[in-house]
Every structure is written in C-alpha cells, then in structure tokens.
C-alpha cells in the first residue's frame, strides 16, 4: 500500500487535477476520489455509476491501481456511465 499521485479529471469539468490515491485502491474507490474534487462542486451530481478510463479503455471497477498498469502521474478520466 503506497501513496500514488495521479492526474485526473471528471468528464465535463474544466481542469486536470492532482489526485492522490493508494496503489491498493480499486477503480471504484479511485472514481470516488476523483469525483470528490469535482462532482457537486462544479459537475452536477447524478445517481449513476462511475467508471475510470485509462488509455482509452474502461477499467473494471474491481481492478486495483497496482494491477492496472497505471504509472504515477499518468492521466485518467472518470465519468458517469
């Protein structure tokens, strides 16, 4: 378990953010950590599941950061499904 900085933005927001996650976090937790800095602050909240996109593909919600191949300070996008 180690701190793992990412670049991320929530789809529809206007800016890329520095988001610290943990390499043991799964994608549902990562999505929540990104959303926490955008949804309900600037992006309208929806009751819908969220997913993480990396290199153009959607990552399974149960996959951890360590399993995903994401490197520190890589860019991910989170969006409502």
């Amino acid at each position, binding site marked *: 378990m180690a701190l793992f*900085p990412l*670049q991320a*933005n929530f*789809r*529809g*927001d*206007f*800016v*890329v*953010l*520095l*988001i*610290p996650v943990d390499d043991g976090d799964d994608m549902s937790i990562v999505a929540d950590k990104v959303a*926490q*800095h955008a949804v*309900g*602050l*600037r*992006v*309208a909240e929806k009751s819908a599941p969220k997913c993480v*996109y990396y290199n153009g593909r959607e990552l399974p919600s149960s996959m951890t950061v360590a399993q995903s191949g994401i490197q520190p*300070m*890589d*860019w991910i*996008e989170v969006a409502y499904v």
Partner: protein
Amino acid sequence: MPKLQRRDYYDIARDMNWAFSYVGEDEVFPEELSKSFGIHGEQWWGWDEPYKLTYREYVHNQAGKDDGIYSIRSTIARSNLYDNLDAGWKSAIKAHYGAIPVPEYFASIGEARMARFGRAAAWRNMATFGTLDECRHGQAQIYFPYCLLGKDPQFDWAHKAMHTNEWGVIAARSLFDDMFTANDAVSTAIQLTFTFETGFTNLQFLGMASDALHVGDIEFGALISSIQTDEARHSQQGEPTLKIMINNGRKAEAQKMVDQMFWRSWKLFALLTGISMDYYTPLESRTMSFKEFMQDWICRQFMDQFKDLGMNVPWYWEEHFLPELDWVHHAYHMGVWFWRPTVWWNPDAGVSAAERDWLEQKYPGWNDRFGKLWDVIGDNVRTGQIEKTYPATLPIVCNCCHIPICSPSIGKAPRITTHNGRKLNFCCEVCEWVWKSQPERYDTHLSIVDRFLAGHIQPPTLEGALQYMGITPDVAGNDAQAYAWNGASRLAAE
C-alpha cells in the same frame, strides 16, 4: 553661433560604430549576451529607427509626463474616487499591479543588456532610453498602489508578488525571464520589443487606459496612458532588428523566435487580460469582448506585421491559437475564482444573469460549457455550502506556460511526455513544441506541482501550499462582490 538642425547632426552623433582592432568582436559582443545569428560587424550598422530622440528631449518630455501623472495621483488621493470604483475593476488593477510593475524592472535589465550588447550604436542609444523607461514604469506602478495600501492590503502585492512563489507569479516570471531578464540582446529585441510590446502590451495599454476612463478610474488611466507612449517608442527596436535578420538570411530563426514568444505571451495575456476584460470590467463599461479585442487589435496588428515584413503567420495560428480565443480564458477564470485563496486579488465571478447573457452572446455555447458548472457553484452558494466552492487539491499545471491544464472539451487528455527520464505535462501541442525547442533552457525549472511532489512544499496540504506561495490571510482572495452575482443569477433563472 547658429544651432545645427537635428537632421544635420543626429545620425553622425549617434552612430558611433567602428571596426575593432585591439579586441575581437566575440569579446565585445559575447554570443551568450548578444547572439549574432551569424550576422557580424558592419552588417548591423544600417540599424535605424524613426524616433531619433535626443537625451535632452527625453529628459524634458519624461519629466513633464511624470509631473502630470504624479499630480493626478496627488489630487485623487484627496478624493474618494477609489472607494467608489466597482469591486471587479479593483480586482483588475490589483491583478495588473502584482503582475507588471516589478517585471518592468526586469525589462530594464533586458533593455540595459541591449544598451550594452546591441550590435549597432543606434540600437544601443534607443535601448538606453528603453532602460530609463522601464525603470520609471516600475517606480510609478509601485508608487501608485503603495498610496492605496491604507485602503487595501492586497496592494502590497504590487511589490511583493514577484518575490514569491505564488503560482501565477511562477507563470509570469517564467515567461518574463525567458523573454528578457535572461535573454540575449538580439533575441530580446525580437521577442520582447517586436513580439510582446508591439504585438500585445502597446495595444493592451491603449485598451486598458480607455477602459479605466470608462469606469472612472482617472488615476490608473493616466498612468497607463503615460506608459503606453513610451512603449510605442522603445518597442520600435524590434522591427529594424528583424529586418536585418531577414535581409541576412535569418528569417527562419526570427520566425521561430516570434512564434515561440507569441504563444508564451498569449497564454499569460489570456490569464490576465482575458479575465479582466470579460469578467472584472463592469458590464456597462465593456466596449468589446476579449475575443473581439484580440481579433480587431492583436490579430490584425500581427497579420499586418507579418505581411509587411514577409513573415508567415505562426504554424499554430488556425489549429490552436484561433480556437483558444473562444474558451481558454473562460476556463482560466473559473480556475482563478475557484482557487481564489491562492491569488492576491478578489476575483469577480462576473456571472450574474445579465453577464451570463452577454457571455453567451459573445461566446455562443458558453452556457453549455461553462454556465452549467457555474450553476452548480451557484447552488452551493445559495444553500450555504460555501465549503464546496473551495478547492481541496492542486490543479496540474503545464510545464511550459505554468498555467493549470484546462480542457476545451470532454475527454481531452493533457500531453504527457518524458525528457531524460523526467515526466512532463503540457496543456497543448504548442506549449510542448516551445519547451522541446530549447529543452536545455527549460529542463531545470520545476512547476509548482513538481515542487509539491518533490517535497518542497510542507506540510503537503493546501494550507502548506498557500504558505509556500506567500499568501497570508489578509490578502487571500475572496469573491469580489460577496456573492451578490448569485442572487441576480437565480432571479433570472426563476
């Protein structure tokens, strides 16, 4: 004894050029400070400019102008004119005062370098006046806000800002160091005087002076007008330098320098002037949108220059620059407002119902891209959830322009690349091109996010970042209108 007419003596008295015999040209004009671009000696001696000013005239004219602006300052100090200015306009001048006066001193270093290492006597003469201009501009633009310190501590940042690591200051200092504080004489003439001053600030100062008078800020208007007339003169060092480069087969090198610095200047210009024009200037005082100003003044000016001198428009003009006119400063504005504790002025949201109508009219699609984000912010203000209108993390900044990486559309990734094992982030293809065109010049400079990740900012929290940036509670920005825009916005929606 009858006096000679100036035209009879000026050129011969000014043009003290000679061929060196006791020392080599490289010793008089070291490449690092002067940079020949392979153009040597007498090839520079035809350098000329139209003003042909004497030192006696300079002192006489400038003393009169300085008397004028300091008299206005002294008179206005006894009135309540400043107190009655719109809060948004106060934000615009505070942003200006933090970003510009000390860099005017930096510019005097660049001018002094040209006054010593410029490759023609006529040029060195002109640059000597430029050095004096920039010293005076620094002094006046620090003195005026100093006189307002009793009314508002944020004016302290007119002097303090450039001595801090505030994020916008890092962006501005990076640009100004690149352009003139740490640039050789020939490149400074092309990049500072031709590109930045002729292209941007000369026209911007005309516009700002006009806006100041519209909002009733006579003091700021007089100050900026006075400075603009000096800018118009000393910016003339660029064109003759450029012509000599073109005539000696160095058009490609000159074009590249213009392209690099136009882009870098544009990004900071969008941040400072774009926001001020479209959000901080009171709606009733706006004569044109920032986009219209850019199209009618800056773009036309550059197009004319490119055409007149046989230069090309920058390679990124159609694909990158013109599209950014529609969106980039709106994104910067939202960022500055949301991260408002990190700036030394109080950002005016500028999104009342009437202002939103104006924005949508000037920038069709604004409501869909930015208005709906402001809707969420407005809802949080209305429901008393102010804590949701503040940031809890840093934005990623570009390693070239040092401004947060914003997106014009959904799903647009930042450009991530590596150089000698170092991971770099760029907001766009052009910033990446600028950086990669001189990696040895930029590689040791760390962005504020790099510094955060390297542990320079302690504690590694937003509070630690504010402390690192030198922001104290008495100057940390807050909403300029105490959220009054929000009520107006809601009434319109209802």
